[in-house]
């Protein structure tokens, strides 16, 4: 391996090049847009669970709703997001 190639390998971003970073940024932008487009009831639940990391019980207590309602709202919110993020999913 030539000296220049060693330098290029050493300075290369291990997490991917600019195209990977741009793709990740595009995906995150699309995800934020998709979350913003959700119905408010579903948006609140998915944010509390998937972004803030609250448990189902904590969400039910915070919103004053049943545990089953948390489950169904979260599932519908995720299904909505799955449909909007189809092109980014493997």
């Amino acid at each position, binding site marked *: 391996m030539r000296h220049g190639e060693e330098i290029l390998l050493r300075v290369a971003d291990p997490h991917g090049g600019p195209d990977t970073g741009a793709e990740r940024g595009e995906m995150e932008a699309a*995800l934020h847009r998709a979350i913003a487009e959700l119905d408010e009831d579903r948006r609140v639940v*998915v944010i509390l*669970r998937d972004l803030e990391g609250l*448990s189902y019980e904590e969400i039910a207590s915070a919103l004053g709703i049943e545990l089953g309602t948390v*489950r169904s709202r979260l*599932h519908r919110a*995720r299904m909505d997001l799955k449909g909007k*993020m189809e092109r*980014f999913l493997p």
Partner: protein
Amino acid sequence: MTCSETRDLLSAWLDQALDAHEREQVEAHLAGCPECRRELEGLRSTVTVLSRVEHPRAPVGFVDRVMGEVYPAPWYRKLGRLVFQPLSVKLPLEAGAMVVIAILGVYLLQGTPEMKDAARPDVPAVAPRPDSRQSRCRHHCPRPPPRHLRQRAQPGSRKERHPLPVRNVSATIWPGARI
């Protein structure tokens, strides 16, 4: 359990938020239903993407600026913040001020004759006795000869025997005049 009932529980199954009975039912249905397994994989990918999202962060100082607009700080608090700035700002300022003061002090001590005299070591505070050697002037008067070289004026010496002749001052002024 039907496909619809199972899919309603898939999110909770992924989050391990089902009780043991519900979990067994879901897993039994998934074992025999490829459609629901495909649905589960799509849901898992969505949750994985969601978990990688970085929380949007407000710019540094944004919250402080907002709260400052909501609750304006009184003038004395602003003055206090100005005086007691963060240590990362205050310490370099103080160090710089100390260096400037030190340089100014050295410049003043070396620049003016008064400050030069003031910087000399002090003379002894005790005044010497008039008859001591130190009372003699060191700058203008010649030192006296050593004791063994001094010549005493003895009675009958040359100075006594031949005193200087007294000049007739009047004769000098008016020659021939007698007083």
